């Protein structure tokens, strides 16, 4: 299969003494939904950080969308169609929910350098409104992110990454901090929208029910190694 969205071989990431990723190899094909599970500190976030160019691996090779990512920064990879959400929401806290989303759109449409047009034009406001409706944030449109509860912050964080229309998307614990009732709802909305667009998804998740329900395939991380890789039923049994 030449159609790998992600190809990783012999990947090691070392922080001083700790090997956060230890000689990892695997591939992910287009339109797969891959769940990553594993205990805290097993290297899941580090894996996403390396895949998106935030960290430079100590050794090994990573090919994203057919391209070796050595030396590429997060903004390069984002432009290539790789986006991510964060374990701890990364927002512009002083701006409103709507403005956060508008900046995402301005970045995607490559108009973020523009000085002569206003950010809040009808066209972009409409799309921002649609996104807020989709993610059930419309009541919060004009609240500063500083005032948002944790759950809404996480959802906005995901919405901002989603707004970029990625080809490959990493979600770092998308439902942590979201209330139990809303967890499934958010995942359902998100997964449906992503599937519709044919996005390849890698998501880190602690809630086994969610993994069971949404993943086509599960990777189990432990001390920087992938100790199991297979169908959810197989992997989750252990």
């Amino acid at each position, binding site marked *: 299969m030449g159609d790998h969205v992600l190809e990783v071989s012999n990947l090691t990431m070392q922080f001083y003494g700790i090997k956060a990723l230890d000689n990892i190899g695997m591939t992910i094909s287009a339109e797969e939904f891959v769940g990553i599970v594993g205990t805290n500190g097993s290297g899941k976030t580090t894996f996403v950080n390396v895949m998106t160019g935030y960290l430079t691996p100590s050794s090994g090779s990573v090919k994203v969308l057919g391209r070796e990512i050595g030396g590429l920064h*997060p*903004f390069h990879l984002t432009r290539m169609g790789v986006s991510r959400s964060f374990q701890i929401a990364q927002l*512009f806290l002083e*701006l409103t929910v709507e403005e956060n989303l508008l900046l995402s759109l301005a970045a*995607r449409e490559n108009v973020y350098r523009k*000085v002569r047009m206003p*950010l809040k034009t*009808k066209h972009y406001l409409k799309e921002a409104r649609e996104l807020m409706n989709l993610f059930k944030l419309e009541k919060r449109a004009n609240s500063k992110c500083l005032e948002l509860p944790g759950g809404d912050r996480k959802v906005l964080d995901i919405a901002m990454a989603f707004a970029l229309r990625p080809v490959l998307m990493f979600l770092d614990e998308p439902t942590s901090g979201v209330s139990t009732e809303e967890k499934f709802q958010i995942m359902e909305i998100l997964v449906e929208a992503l599937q519709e667009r044919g996005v390849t998804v890698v998501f880190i998740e602690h809630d086994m029910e969610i993994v069971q329900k949404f993943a086509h395939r599960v990777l189990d991380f432990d001390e920087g190694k992938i100790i199991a890789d297979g169908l959810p039923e197989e992997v989750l049994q252990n």
Partner: protein
Amino acid sequence: MRPFYTKFFLILGLFVVIGIIVPAWMRYLLTIALCKGIIASGVMLLLKCGLVSFGHALYSAAGAYAVALTVKHLGVREILIIIPVGVAAGILSAAVIGLIVSRYREIFFAMITMAFSMAFYGFLVKAYGLTGGTDGLRIPPPTLFGSALPEGYERFVLYILTLIFVALVAGILHKTERSPFGFLLQGIKGNEVRVSYLGIPVQRAVLRTFIISGCFAGLGGGLLAVNSGHIDPHLSYWTVSGEFVFISLLSGVGNLNFVFIGAILVEFIRSYAFSYVPYLWQMILGGIMLLIIIFSPGGLWQIYNSAADRLKPSLKDSNPGVKHNDS
């Protein structure tokens, strides 16, 4: 016409009237204040993305010296040529130094910009042959459209010219504040990681901001040189940069155009402080600065905003950071 432009032309008209009725010394003070406002607006832009430049006097001094040297060595006195030369000098110097400083943030950014301006100050003092050392350079009265300024009205014409440039800058600032780029600046201040993960190269955006701010500084510096008729190395001294930071802080980055109000206020306070308590100017400056940081971190803009809120909600200007839909 949109409300901003109505207000814009009203205020501009007001300034013209003020220029006609006030005594010459006061008009001169006002002219100088406006030039400094233009320079400080560049510092404001950087402040908006969370960066303090303690060395912005370098770029205005570059503009001022470029003007003076063009007049002296090329014999060009046409204001419509020498001012663009000043702007070019501001842009060029900011571009070169911006390449180095745009990778730094916070303290490093503040102190490295300051270091460069001090080095430039040292250069201006020591390169006597070129810059006249501490004696500085004289700038003879400029010409406009090739002819000398009308006799007896030179200062007034220069005031109006300065006002035109101020209007231009004010318009740009107003647009910028509401533009994607303006919001991006706040984004860079708020969360650089997110900016990168939107696919935006932060360092390049900072460099761009730095160059724009250098452009304003060069313009303000050039105008300052033409208006004051004499420049010296002190123009690049770090305390002068500190004053631009002060003006920005006093004005408040919530509304960039407040920079002109802040600049006028500072110039008049200074003028009175110099005549009554000449040794205490720095203390007054520092004292006010501390009071603002502690009690009104949003500066004059914050004070105006909360006062307007209390008086009448409709008086309030639309704040790009809070309200939405201004187009």
